[in-house]
């Protein structure tokens, strides 16, 4: 009996691997094939001669370096900016009582329900009125506030022991010092989680560059890779997959090191 259930389990696992992992293997395998090899049927499982040049070709066919710099600038800027808006707001919601607090906290939570797909057109109009289309600011500012971040960090701040705060106040520590020396070190896991979520979300972002840019000046990698599908001589799938591999590498590296942490971070809301 045990053997049968083990065999059943192995078969199930193999099916799951086939469905969820094999597509990624196919992406990697295609990235090393020649254009000719992508046009044979049935396709070969392995590339005959791994074409490392494909990755160089991607960098030549599209201004890869330019997109990469834009991706780095916008991603890092958003991560830093969100910290600047989220930490003080979470601290105020956690440690202060003030008029309108429930209302403002409610407003914060409501913004979680307003998707980007709903608001992009008025924002495009707004940015174009200020001549901000095709600027970094237009790709960074819509991400300035993070309702989820405030929500998560406020919860952590609420758990900071009162005795610790009283002791610090007796020592006449300034508020800034209390935040810096007590609140932030105690919340390090939450801060790392938020930074990871923001990094992954912004690095992968295809939507905002699509709707808020009209030329290549500030466009980022995901959009750059997609532009290769418009090649006149047919779609170069080997280059598309090589590009996909390149832009997925940072995410996959982070995932390999912190998959447990990342799954937990992404599924946090649902666990409640």
């Amino acid at each position, binding site marked *: 009996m045990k053997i049968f259930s083990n065999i059943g389990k192995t078969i*199930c*696992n193999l099916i*799951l*691997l086939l*469905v*969820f992992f094999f*597509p990624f293997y*196919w992406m990697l395998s295609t990235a090393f094939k020649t254009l000719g090899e992508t046009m*044979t*049927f*049935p*396709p070969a499982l392995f590339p005959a001669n791994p074409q490392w040049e494909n990755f160089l070709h991607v960098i030549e066919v599209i201004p890869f370096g330019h997109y990469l710099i834009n991706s780095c600038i916008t991603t890092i800027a958003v991560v830093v900016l969100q910290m600047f*808006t989220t930490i003080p*707001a979470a*601290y*105020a919601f956690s440690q*202060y009582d*003030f008029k309108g*607090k429930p209302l403002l906290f409610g*407003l*914060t939570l409501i*913004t979680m*329900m*307003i*998707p980007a*797909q*709903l*608001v992009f*057109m*008025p*924002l495009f109009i*707004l940015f174009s009125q200020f001549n901000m289309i095709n600027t970094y600011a237009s790709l960074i*500012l*819509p991400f300035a*506030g993070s*309702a989820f971040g405030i929500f998560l960090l406020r919860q952590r701040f609420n758990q900071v022991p009162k005795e610790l705060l009283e002791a610090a106040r007796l020592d006449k520590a300034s508020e800034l010092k209390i935040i810096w020396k007590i609140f932030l070190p105690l919340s390090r896991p939450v801060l790392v989680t938020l930074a990871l979520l923001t990094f992954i979300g912004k690095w*992968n*972002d*295809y*939507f905002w560059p699509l*709707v808020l840019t009209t030329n290549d000046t500030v466009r980022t990698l*995901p*959009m750059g*890779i*997609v532009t290769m*599908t418009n090649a006149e001589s047919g*779609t170069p*799938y080997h280059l*598309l997959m090589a590009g996909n591999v390149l832009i*997925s590498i940072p*995410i996959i590296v982070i*995932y390999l090191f912190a*998959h*447990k942490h*990342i*799954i937990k971070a*992404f599924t946090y*809301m*649902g*666990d409640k």
Partner: protein
Amino acid sequence: MKKKFLSIGKPYLLIAPAMAAFLLFSIYPVMSMVQLSLFDWNMISPEKDFIGLANYQKLFYDEDFRQTLLNTAVFTVFSVLGDIGLGLLIALYLKKNTLVNRIMQSVIFAPYIISLASISLLWMWLMNPDYGLLNAALEALHIPGINWLGSPQYAMLSVILICVWKSVGYDAMILLAALQSVPENLYEAAALDRASWWRKLTKVTLPMISPTLFFLTIVETIASFNVFETIQILTRGGPQNSTDTIVFSLYQYGFKFYRIGYASTIGVVLMIIMTLFTIVYFVLLSKRVHYQ
């Protein structure tokens, strides 16, 4: 005196940057869209024509929009069912905390954190009618190949498959956490009653995880209503409007035909639909869901 004012004003100062961001980039655009839906405007001309509710009237009789609504509804129903149904199966299967199961969890979750643009391109390749892996697999089974994304009868199904593939790991992981928090003594009691596997699932497991199921239903429904990137990259609403969804037509009217008023009207209708769904879910939630 000055110090007192500062300490009253301080919390407001602290939340000001975040609130400014929310007002400017979430609340303002929604208001602005409601206002724009009452005008006829092409984004370029300096003046907007006020036309009252004419856009809404036109939208009501617009057959293309009806098709769009239907497509979005089909997409939403099947992707939500697929995400939660398959997610639940996977979660039940991987419930036991073993090394192999943990590795499988990481593998199944991986598509969720890769860019939707990359995932779309990958599946464009896998579903390529001439040289794609899927048709090669069908060929090996002596089944004729399918024009996955290029035929009206299969395009929507293909888009749904891709979206479920990408996000089912998310639902599975959330359901897994919910399953693991069901108290073990409930199962022990059920075992004493010699309850069957099916009875345990329907009488213990599902009621206990119903808050999570409701949460996922809301989240996935709203996400599905807003499906866009996959459509924009893979089918552009075609063939023959078979994958034209609400947000894609909003995008087309806004950025391709420059009919800002009409596009805004579509946005407002989408917002109303989402709000209604959220309210219905919460009413149902307060009535039906079992809490511990």
